[in-house]
Every structure is written in C-alpha cells, then in structure tokens.
C-alpha cells in the first residue's frame, strides 16, 4: 500500500508500483475530474500537482507517491463555489466541451502561485503542455491573465434580454469543478471491461482460432464475442442506403484497426491483457491506400455492387460552361490536394451499458442519440423503443461522434452477459478506428473577364472515402453545392466522386468536404485576381453573392446574405496589413510578411433532406420551466443557446429554466448535432415550443397575448393589464414526467432535393464569412509564423456573442492545423506526438467581427456557425503564404518542407 494525500485528505492505493497516478485517482479514489486523453504525456489533460509541481498524472507511477501531496481539480473549488480562476474561465468562455479544462486549470493554478498577474507569454508557456481542440486557446489565455483580479460574474440578463447577451454557459460549473461526467467518468461499480481485437493490417483475411480455449486459459476473461454473436444485423451506417460497416469483420478487414472480436472480463485482469496473443491468424492482402490504387483497372472491389470502388458521385451544374469560358479574358487552372485529418478531440470514445430485462441502456459520448438508438436496435434485432441512449458529457466531437464507435460493443456484451459493461478507447485505438476528414484531390478551372468579373468555374473533386460509406455520400453531395463559393458566375459545373480505399472510413468533420473545396476555389481566386491585376479583396467583393442573385444551385435569397458585408468590413484591416507587409519586406531580406483573405459560405442543415427537430418544454409543480433539450451540447453551447431562446420566447429569466436530456427515453428527437443545424433548427423548435407554452399559461390565467409571466417561489404569476393572476399549479394533474403543463414545438426547414443537374434549394439558410490572415515566412527554413487572424462572420444574429466567438476561435485553430501541420497516416501517426494539432504557441491573436444580417428564418434571426468558422482559415493562410513567397502551396499540409520546396521552385 502506498500512502499519500490528495487535496488535503489521506489516501492510499495498492497494486503495481507502475500504475499511473491518473488511473489511481480515477479508479481507486473516484476523482474523475482528472481526465485521460492519451496516457502518453502528449495532451496534458491529466495534469495535476504533486508536491506543488505540475505533472502529467499518466506518467507518474504510484510507487513515487509515498508521502506526497497531490492536488487535483477537485481541490480547487469549494463544492460549487468557484474560485476566481474558475469564474474567470466561465466568464471568458475558456471552457467549451470541458475535457481539457481540469488540466488547464491545474496548469494555470501552478502559474498563478508564482505569478499572480502573468503576461500572455507566461500563460502560453505555462499552459503549453495542455492540448485543447475546441477553444483555439486565446480565451483561455484571457481567462488566466485576468484571473487574479476577477471579481464576480455578471448577473443574468433581465427577462426578454437573454438573446444577444453574453450569458455564461448554463452547464459551465461542472466543467470547472471536474464533476461533468464524460464517457468514462461514471461507470457503474463492478462493470466488466471490454477490449477490442483489431486488425493490424490495412487489408487482410483472417481465421479466428480456439476462442473457448482462450477464454478458459485466461483468468478474468469472461467471454469473447465475434461476428456470429451479433444478434441482429452485423452492419451499421449513418445513411439508410449506405449501411455497410460491420460491428465485427466477417471474412476480410478493410482498414487498419477494424474490429474482429472483443474480449470481456474483469477489469483488473484484462486491462493489460496482451491482445497480440488472441488466437487469430492473419493473411495480409495488398491494400489500396489511395483512389489511384482503387480506381486502377483490375483493382479488387471492396464492396459488392460498388463498381470500381465508387461509392457515389455528385454533380451541380448551371449555365453554358463552354461559352462562359470562351468569353473569358483570363482562365486559370490548378490542382490541389488535402490529406486525411483526425478529429483529435481530447476525449476518446467511451461509455457503459446495462441490460434491464428486455431493454438496453447505453450511456455514451455521442453527437446523435436517436440515430445511435436506431442503429443499435438494428444491430441487436430489437425495437428502437427497447434501446435507451443517454449521452454523457461529450469531450469534443467535430463530426466523428456522429458515427457508432463503442456503442455496439457495449450493447452486445451487456445483452449476452446481462452484466454492466464499460469501455474506453486508448488514443491509438481512437485514432486508428474512427472516421477522418476525407482526403481530397481537386482540379479547378476558373475564368473571368478583364474587368474582374467571374465567368465560369469547373470543379472536379475526388474524395477518398476510406473503407466504409459513413458520411461519404454527404460529402460528395455537399461539396459540389458549395465548391464555387459564395460568388456569382455565368456558368458553373462541379463533379465529385467518393472512392473507397483501405484507409480508415472518412466521415463527417466540421464542414463535410467544404473546407477542402474552399482551399482550391479560394486559392485559384488569388491567382486569377493577380493575373487580372485586381486587388484580391476587391475581386471577391465585386463577385460576391448578394440577395436576389441565384446561388450555384439556382436558389435565390431575398435577404440574409451578409457575405459582401463580411468582405467589406475587412477593408481597413486589409489596407493596413498590406501596408505593414510591404514595410516589413523592405526591412527584412530573408523573411517575408504575407496577407491573405478567403471567403466562405455554408448551408445550415442536411443537404436537401428532411431535417426536423422537436423540443418539449414543461412547467413543474415547483414552478420551474423544464426544457427537454435533445440538441446534444458537445461543447458548442447548445444548452445555453436553447435556454436563452426559451427564456426570451417565454419572457422569463434564464435562471428559472432547468434542462433535462438529451436522452432517447425522455427528450424528443432534436436531430443530430451536425451540419451547424442546432441553433437554427432546434432553436426554432425551442422558440415554437416556448410560444406554445406561454400561450397555454396565458390562457389558463385568462390573460391577453401581451401578458407577462413570472416564475418564482413555487408559483407562476401572470401580469396583464394591471392585474396579477396566480396559476394554481397544485390544482393541476401531474404527468409521467412530473410536469403540470407541457408544450412541444417542432421545426423542419423547407428545402428541396437536388434535380439531375444539382439544382434546387438544398438549404433554407446559409451562413457566410471572410477571414484575413497575416503571417511571416522564413525564406530559408520555410517556417510560417502566424501574426494575426481577423474573422468576419455573418451569423444572422449572435444569440450569445461569447459562444459565437468561441466557435470562431475553435474553427480557426482547426483550420490552422489543417493548413500547416495535420496529416493522418495509418500506422504512423496514431498518437498525439506524431499527429500534431495546434498548441498555445500556434494560434495567434484573433479579432472577430460579427455581422448580423438578421435571417428571416432563424430564431431571433440566428444562423448556425459551428462549421463555418473553419472553412476560410486554411485558404486564407495558404493565400497569405503565396503572397509572402510569390508561389502557391497547393498540397497540404503546408509544412516547412512543402513551403521551402515552393520557395525553391521560384
């Protein structure tokens, strides 16, 4: 037994002296505020203080702790009473999903002991060992710099003033105290552990050996399950026509990391079981690692019926292309490519499950509980009603947690064994087996007349969709709708193809193919503008899509098109930056300062498909508003946004609202947290439900439409025309949910499918944006130093400006990673030191400018913003690099090696 102290209290733990402190804290002491993101010292989310020194708890062995004092996030707050650092985090929007927050807080508290008023640089250095994938770091820096002097959080806005206010995250406190329960934070005691046996090869056939003998020979192993043990359909997917991914491979594995079996057992016995000794014989097959391989004549077909490994093709075309090119004074064409990119949320996939009679209850980190329910029901051969999906707190998703990961394993093991079970992926497991951003190969040709007006664009994109369909069809359809950007052409033609390979499945990742397309389109725009002698910003302004002009699919918006404003508002920044870059270049010989700009648009919601959301709101006998919030908050802030909309629509203070869900047994289906749809679509459903509830309550009080509701002290008062009526809640019947009044609201935006030319109205609204990047390139080393990013986004209406800015910062950080460093290579970069994501040192100052075009369809005029914020960043960086060095980098990432190669090609 090793004896030590944790947060001032005596603690002890036994077992191997090489057990990691993070494991001891979480498993033995149930202090799950210390998070685990990698177990390799790369992410810092397990940062704690040992004897006052900041360490990664995953690399501290238990044997070292004798007599030590350990401080964890649980030691920072007094219950729910936050310290000034935590309040500053809440105020500054420094916690989004919250998975990195405990590590950030521990690093910050170590710094603040030494330097109560730290500089920005000191904060960046001291917190530099903790990775965050949501915030883009700048708000964390602001929070720590201001922490020592931070007084009190602002009071909630008065009734009717919540929308537009910088309301602090309503679910923020648990993220700052370490009590928010993520996927692996609250497994039931005694749960069995699941470990998954995976293919070490990109493509292989296999024979599983003596499983019974294996179980018998290993103490603590209770069962092994393989494909034959899947009770229902051994296939899952996210689009009904493209359900093709097996829970366990049957004959052939199609990507490295694909599951073939799982081992279930007592956690202590199997957590370090050597799965390389699982009885299986592999027969490695020649893999197809790119579309060039899988489209080659004679290439094996990975999925029956998908000729030449083509999953789907996409097409959008309008106008007479040949004529428009013929009438151009300048035509430029080029090819671009982008690599596989990993989501790298800090929370690995995790969850737990139990069987309750003939039902299954699964708690899991997910962006889409209802879709999970449908798929698990099919896999288990159960009715959907027999499956309950309870989302845990989600430590980042960005699209990948739209697909099933651990859910089928939990379901199958819990069902067959009738025991509670748990699973958490290791970082390598998470990286090798979950979806990626589609690698792309894009050719683009664009023309313009000598007066700088665009004529035509032709776009051809080949997307590597990996081993299974996942969201490949969505990418292939969304990309051509967006690939010309928010600009007007005489003619446009975009074709896409999604091709299977033996890469991990490509799926949804913040933008569904639009970021890749924008790199090509915005990149070639700069080349065309230069060829025409046009200022690059002017060129975009001249050609910008405006209200009343058709989009690439022929849709015409009469309002809510704020793109031109986004560009125009950058004008003074652009002029200043160009001047400064010229000045810089005059005084430096081996370094060049560059400025780049890129525009973007993004349709909110599914592409030309039904897209409904339903929200239920009730009143409890204690006079609390209960919001059944099915729009999963993965850090973006849906819980807060929905509360703000609900409060204003009801005309009450935000503080009277409680939230329930998301949970498939309790909350109606609000649809997926994807496609930047929740604020727009579920926000409208909240708005509708709130108005209905308000109307019901006013009617009960026989008040007019102008009546005012007041909730508090166990009663609802209605003020109207100088009178006050109390609604007698005690006299009302209580329903199964414990509510006395209930209303539901639904919203489904009106869209149309695309016709054979890809024409139609695929989205009810688009968001727009433009970002400007200033950077310096070292001409001898090819290294890029970002100086500043200025981002203007048309968000319709900012329901919560702090949350919107948080989305902008976070999207920019991911865009920086995409532009400069990220490339996923199966078998090579399956951890967070070989796969690099931006750190504190990589995200520069960000200035945000919110354009509020007041969309006629959005709740209070609001549009979605989640994915929009990433799209323009990488192209703006690449355009700034080209401005600095005079030649384009068209293949990502623009690593020092690639940039140097471009410089030397001049």
């Amino acid at each position, binding site marked *: 037994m090793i004896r030590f102290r944790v947060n001032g209290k005596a603690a002890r733990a036994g077992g191997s002296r090489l057990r990691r402190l993070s494991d001891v804290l979480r498993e033995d002491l149930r202090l799950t505020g210390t998070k685990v993101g990698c177990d390799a010292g790369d992410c810092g989310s397990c940062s704690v203080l040992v004897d006052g020194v900041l360490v990664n708890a995953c*690399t501290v062995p238990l044997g070292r702790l004798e007599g030590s004092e350990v401080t964890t996030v649980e030691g920072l707050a007094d219950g729910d009473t936050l310290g000034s650092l935590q309040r500053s985090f809440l105020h500054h929007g420094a916690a989004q999903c919250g998975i990195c927050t405990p590590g950030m807080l521990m690093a910050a508290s170590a710094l603040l002991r030494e330097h109560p008023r730290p500089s920005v640089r000191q904060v960046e250095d001291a917190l*530099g060992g903790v990775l965050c994938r949501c915030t883009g770091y700048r708000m964390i820096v602001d929070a720590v710099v201001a922490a020592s002097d931070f007084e009190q959080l602002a009071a909630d806005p008065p009734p009717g003033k919540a929308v537009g206010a910088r309301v602090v995250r309503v679910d923020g406190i648990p993220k700052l105290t370490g009590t928010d329960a993520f996927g692996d934070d609250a497994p039931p005691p005694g749960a069995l552990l699941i470990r998954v046996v995976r293919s070490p090869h990109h493509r292989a056939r296999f024979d599983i050996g003596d499983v019974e003998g294996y179980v018998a020979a290993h103490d603590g192993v209770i069962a092994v399950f393989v494909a034959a043990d899947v009770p229902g359909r051994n296939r899952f997917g996210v689009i009904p026509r493209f359900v093709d991914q097996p829970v366990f491979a049957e004959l052939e594995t199609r990507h490295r990391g694909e599951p073939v079996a799982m081992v279930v057992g007592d956690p202590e016995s199997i957590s370090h079981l050597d799965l390389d000794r699982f009885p299986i014989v592999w027969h490695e097959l020649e893999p197809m690692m790119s579309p060039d391989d899988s489209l080659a004549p004679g290439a094996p077909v990975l999925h029956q019926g998908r000729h030449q490994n083509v999953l789907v093709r996409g097409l959008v075309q309008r106008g007479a292309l040949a004529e428009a090119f013929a009438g151009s004074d300048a035509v430029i064409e080029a090819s671009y490519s982008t690599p596989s990119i990993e989501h790298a949320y800090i929370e690995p996939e995790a969850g737990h499950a139990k069987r309750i009679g003939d039902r299954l209850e699964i708690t899991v980190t997910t962006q889409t509980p209802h879709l999970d329910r449908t798929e698990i029901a099919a896999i288990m051969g159960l009715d959907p009603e027999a499956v309950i999906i309870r989302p845990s707190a989600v430590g980042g998703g960005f699209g990948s947690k739209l697909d099933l990961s651990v859910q089928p394993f939990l379901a199958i093991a819990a069902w067959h064994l009738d025991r509670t079970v748990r699973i958490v992926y290791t970082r390598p497991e998470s990286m090798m087996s979950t979806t990626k951003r589609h690698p792309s190969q894009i050719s683009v040709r664009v023309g313009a007349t000598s007066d700088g007006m665009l004529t035509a664009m032709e776009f051809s994109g080949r997307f590597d969709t990996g081993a299974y369909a996942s969201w490949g069809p969505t990418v292939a359809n969304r990309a051509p709708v967006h690939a010309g950007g928010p600009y007007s052409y005489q003619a446009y033609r975009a074709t896409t193809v999604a091709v299977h390979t033996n890469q991990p499945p490509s799926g949804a990742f913040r933008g569904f193919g639009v970021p890749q397309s924008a790199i090509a389109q915005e990149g070639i725009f700069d080349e065309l503008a230069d060829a025409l002698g046009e200022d690059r910003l002017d060129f975009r302004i001249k050609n910008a899509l405006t209200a009343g002009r058709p989009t690439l699919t022929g849709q015409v918006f009469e309002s809510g098109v704020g793109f031109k404003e986004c560009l125009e508002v950058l004008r003074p920044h652009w002029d200043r930056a160009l001047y400064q870059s010229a000045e810089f270049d005059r005084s430096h010989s081996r370094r060049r300062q560059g400025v780049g700009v890129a525009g973007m648009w993004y349709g909110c919601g599914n592409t030309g498909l039904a897209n409904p959301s339903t929200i239920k709101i009730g009143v409890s006998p204690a006079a609390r508003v209960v919001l059944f919030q099915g729009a999963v908050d993965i850090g973006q802030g849906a819980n807060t946004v929905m509360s703000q909309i609900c409060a204003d629509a009801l005309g009450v203070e935000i503080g009277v609202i409680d939230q329930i869900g998301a949970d498939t047994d309790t909350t109606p289906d609000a649809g997926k947290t994807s496609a930047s749809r929740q604020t727009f679509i579920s926000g409208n459903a909240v708005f509708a439900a709130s108005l209905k509830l308000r109307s019901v309550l006013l009617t009960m009080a026989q008040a007019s439409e102008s009546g005012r509701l007041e909730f508090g002290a166990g009663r609802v008062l209605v003020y109207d025309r100088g009178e006050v009526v109390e609604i007698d809640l005690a006299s009302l019947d209580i329903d199964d949910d414990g509510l006395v009044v209930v209303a539901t609201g639904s919203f489904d935006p009106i869209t149309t499918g695309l016709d054979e030319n890809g024409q139609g109205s695929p989205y009810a609204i688009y968001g727009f944006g433009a970002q400007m990047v200033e950077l310096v390139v070292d001409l001898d080393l090819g290294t890029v130093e970002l100086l500043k990013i200025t981002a203007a986004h048309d968000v319709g209406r900012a329901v919560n400006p702090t949350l919107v800015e948080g989305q902008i910062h976070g999207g920019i950080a991911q865009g920086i990673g995409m532009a400069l460093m990220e490339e996923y290579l199966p078998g090579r970069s399956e951890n967070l030191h070989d796969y690099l994501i931006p*750190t504190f*040192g990589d995200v520069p100052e960000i200035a945000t400018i919110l354009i509020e075009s007041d969309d006629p369809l959005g709740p209070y005029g609001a549009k979605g913003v989640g994915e929009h914020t990433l799209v323009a960043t990488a192209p703006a960086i690449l355009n700034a690099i080209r401005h600095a060095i005079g030649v384009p980098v068209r293949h990502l990432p623009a690593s020092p090696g690639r940039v140097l190669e471009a410089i030397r090609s001049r």
Partner: protein
Amino acid sequence: MDFVRAKDVAEAIAAKAERPDAEFLAGGTDLMVAVNLDDHRPQSVIGLRHVAELQQMDDTRIGAGVTWDRLERAPQRALAQAARTVGSPQIRAAGTIGGNVGTASPAGDGLAWIAALDAGIEVASVERGRRIVPWAEFFVGVKRTSLAADEMITAVVLPDEQIEAQEFAKVGSRNTMVISTVSCVVARVGSGYRVALGSVAPTPMRAFQAEEMLNDETSPSPAAIAEFGRLVAAEVRPITDHRSTEAYRRHAAGVLAGRLLERCLSS
C-alpha cells in the same frame, strides 16, 4: 513485477547486476508511456528518484537525474536553450538528461549539445565500477547505446575547457511540445568551432568537415559562413519519415548551423 527503490548508486547497480532485464525509472516520461500502452511489460524496475548523487550538477558534471526544468536555468547557454524546448512544463518537471541519453532517440533534445561539447557519459556497474564513455561511442544507433546490461548512466561529464560561445536551435512543425525535425548546436571553444546536430542521423552527430573548414579561417567571412552551412548540409545523414523529408532536414541543418554560427560570432 518487482520494484527496487535505490537510495544510492551502489544499490542501483547491485540491483541491476542481479536483474539485467530491469528498467531504470527516473522521470517516467518514456518508460511510463510504454507501460501505459502495453508496448513494454518490464519484469523489474529500479527507481532512481531517491539517489541524491544523480541530482547533483556543477561545472564539470550533470547528474543523470537532473530534470529539464532545472536545466532551463543551466549556466551553459545552449543547454538551457535546448531544455526550454523539451516537451511541456509537465515533461520538463519530470524528464531527466539521463533519460534523454538512455533513450537515445535521434530527436533527443539534449544530445546535440552533448556531442558539441565532446561530453562523456559516465556509467557505473558492480563489475567494472565507473567509466566514462565518449559520446560518440555511447550512441550507436536509433535508440541504441553501448550501455551494458549491468550498467547505469550516472552523469554527463563535461570536458575541462572554456566554452566561449554556444547556441542551440531546432525546427519542428509546431511551436510548443514539438519533436525536432532538425536540432543544432554550434559552440566556440579554445580549439575552434564545433557543430553538432540531432534528428539528421541515427545518432547525434558532429559535422567534422564543416568544423575543419571553419577552423582554418581566422575570421569567418560571409562566404565562409555560407560554405560552412553547405558542408553541414552535405555531411548530415537524414532520412524521410512522417515528420519531414531527407531533403528538408539536410537543407535546414545547413541553415540552422549557419545562423547559429553567426550568433556565436556576434557574441
């Protein structure tokens, strides 16, 4: 697994003599990761954190257990510069220079400095007592050293010579927690200039031809500095991997060497 907590070097090497397979554990930044991810399942471990001797440092030797956060304030300028680029504050608080030497990764941030200074690695065993192995004989391949199964690393031993100037720099693909694609140290000592590099060969290396060329110059001209960079680039033996290419590493090695030389010249 059995665990021996050594109080001094004698205990540590006695334990190692009995258990040639044992792993030494100091900061844990390498060993714990391998254990956590099941890449390595050591049968026995010898803990070194309580060996006071390993924590000591002075002008002539740096104990193997000295952590990077202490080396950030080391009087040797290039070593301090290198220390500041090691991992993160958490890694620097735990990781030691002895661990860097023992792991012998081509990207080890402290190794180019050891090569530049012509430092030796002091090792100890029950059988042979203490001996100092010249760095060039200690590092024999990628993550391979000449350390015998019964030996432990006790110190980095510095030659008794005045270092007049020393500079470190590295290049990587991001700005914090970055594994180097190239690292370089240039030092000026009484006998002339030295240039050492990391991540461009299986082991840390010196570019001796570049040194020789430079040491023939009394006061290096811009042309000589450029030639120095060219020779360094010609002499390194990098590979292409997922972090960078052979061509980039070669080029960047020359650029860094030239820049660091200029800094040494102006100091």
